[in-house]
């Protein structure tokens, strides 16, 4: 009896080990693209960038506030489309503790300044010159928007252009 029990335990243990290896492989294989991307529920990685007016913005300084972190490029049509909507909502929500940080993916000062002037953007715009922040956030393709709550946790990542209505909804989600 003892021997049989030992055999059952041995067999179960080996099968469990092999099963675990299979589950791990499958899981790792199907999440390998996602692991690289920044996911919902992760803590947002801190960064420091200087905006067009020369003010430095450190993400962790905005603890206690919601942050809408947007990555964009001047040539990107969907980015351009959502910019005025973001600006309108910024005007409403900046008093309610929601900040917008718009990170350009490393273009020339000239292009970014022209773009900001053209659309009369009022939220802080910073240029990620050596592309460290976009690498940290695995940004590709544009536009990408991260919703960061007051605790610095990523509530959602949004790819593609946003309508004014959805921006407004998302601002509500991260309002402290």
């Amino acid at each position, binding site marked *: 009896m003892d021997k049989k029990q030992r055999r059952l335990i041995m067999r179960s243990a080996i099968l469990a080990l*092999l099963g675990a*290896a299979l589950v791990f*492989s499958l899981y790792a*294989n199907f999440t*390998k693209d996602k692991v690289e991307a920044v996911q919902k529920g992760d803590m947002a990685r*801190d960064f*420091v960038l200087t905006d067009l007016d020369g003010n430095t913005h450190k993400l962790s300084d905005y603890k206690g506030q919601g942050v809408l972190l947007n990555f964009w490029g001047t040539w990107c049509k969907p980015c351009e489309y959502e910019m005025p909507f973001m600006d309108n909502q910024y005007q409403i929500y900046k008093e309610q503790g929601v900040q917008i940080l718009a990170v350009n993916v490393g273009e020339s000062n*000239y292009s970014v300044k*022209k773009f900001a002037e053209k659309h009369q953007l009022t939220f802080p715009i910073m240029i990620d010159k050596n592309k460290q922040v976009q690498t940290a956030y695995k940004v590709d393709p544009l536009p990408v928007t991260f919703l960061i709550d007051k605790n610095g946790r990523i509530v959602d990542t949004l790819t593609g252009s946003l309508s004014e209505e959805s921006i407004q909804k998302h601002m509500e989600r991260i309002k402290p």
Partner: protein
Amino acid sequence: MKEVVNCECGHVNPHGTILCESCGRVLDDAQKDSKMIDMRYEGSARRSQTYNKSIIDKIWNFFSSVKVGVSLIVILLIASSVGTIFPQEQYIPPTELPKVFYEKEYGFSGKLYYLLGFHNLYSSWWYLICIAMLGTSLLIASIDRVVPLYRSLKKQKIARHEGFLKKQRLFGITSTDKQASDFEEIKKSLESRRYKVKEENGNILAEKGRFSRWGPYVNHAGLIIFLIGGMLRFLPGMYVDEVLWLREGEMKEIPGTEGQYALKNNQFKVEVYDKEEDQTFSAAIDKVGTIVKNYQADVTLYEKEGNTLPGEDAKFQKIKDHSIKVNVPLKHDHFAFYQVDYKLDELSEMTFNLMNKSTKETFGTITISLDDPKTMYKLQNGYSVELMSYFPDFEFDENQEPVTKSPVPNNPAFIFNMKTPDKPEGEVSFVAIQQTLEPLGENTYKMAFAGVDTRNVTALTVRKDLTLWIFFVGGGIFMIGVIQGAYWNHRRIWIQRKDGEIWLAGHTNKNWHGLKRDISMVLEGTNITEPKDQLEAKEVGEKEK
């Protein structure tokens, strides 16, 4: 179900045993009548075929089956070959949608290929499950066979049961009187042939090459290590395979290093063979035009000092300079950088002269950095040029508005406002490559193109693989197993005395000819007759019928 089988010799065998582990008596009724016994796994009880009660046992038994193992191999072989018919998803042009691409390129069969998931075969769930099942089968089938086989070979007695000897493929009986002296000679002769000879009560067991029986299991262990290596690639930090595009003069964080390392491209060049200098190639050069001698990226590797946040100015410590050429990678800290692609002559600067169109007189030169253009270019004597708009990769959109389709200066275009003493308000001019428009009416001045500055771009593969040695170890063990099982064989010769007769039986797991030769050489000069090959005798007998 019986737990154990008691043999007449007193040995207690596990249930399911065919031949007694100790004396070799045939315990399985089905085999009692056959002329020869099945010697596979020494007639030991393959564990899987005994207990079959719980679900665990049923799963275990499924994977223990050789049929299942072979079926898995066949399925994987067929699937793997089908996966090579059309290119896998990662090798189709990155701009193409797989859904459209396969049908467009390969017609109906391409569509089917896509729908059945063969375009992404090697990481599909069912392929991975098949591989995992094969690994399970290898492990379980091996455990199930190697343990009882080891037991049987360890417990075998020198004197075997009559039935066991009689039913060996090589078997013979000699009636003789003068046995003792022959036995000594035979023993010596066997030992000189590197048999291990054991004697007990005048019975001899000569054995050689037992370790070759472990060959298949060593081989399987190697395969399992190989599979583990493949699995470890999924662990973060074990395996990196990225591409890094780097312009001349540009310094970038190396992907896969979490910001620890940065690489700077000092120069990239493509050298070609010269017809005059390299006479050997002159005929070939005449035939094809140019032949590349060298692709080379001169780079500097930097390591970041201290912990800085992304975006923060970091201090970098230079580690080394290196010229990366094809097959001469830069290696550092398990990372290797290989030359993989390049782009020559990307525009970096453009130079224009402010010129009076009619007099051709110039009033200064401006050089525009395409990465970092300025808003205003001041010239002397009250002349200046304002850059009103800049399109690095210019095209007209659907509204005939100038736009840029990327941030890369592939096709730069500018809108200038030329301010001159005679036109203080300025004149607007749209300048693209080989194209000038004057949207607000005829101008007196123009921006005359004066030259470009270009730079080269290199593409490097960033590779890190900490699992490679596991594949080498696995592959090495695999080969050792193959050699062990293939170049040696396990030969045994039993010689026993029974009532004035000498019984001789022989068994080998392969190469019967070698065993027969060994026996005939050992018996040379003795009056013991050579044993008969019962398998050949049987075949001859069947033919004669």
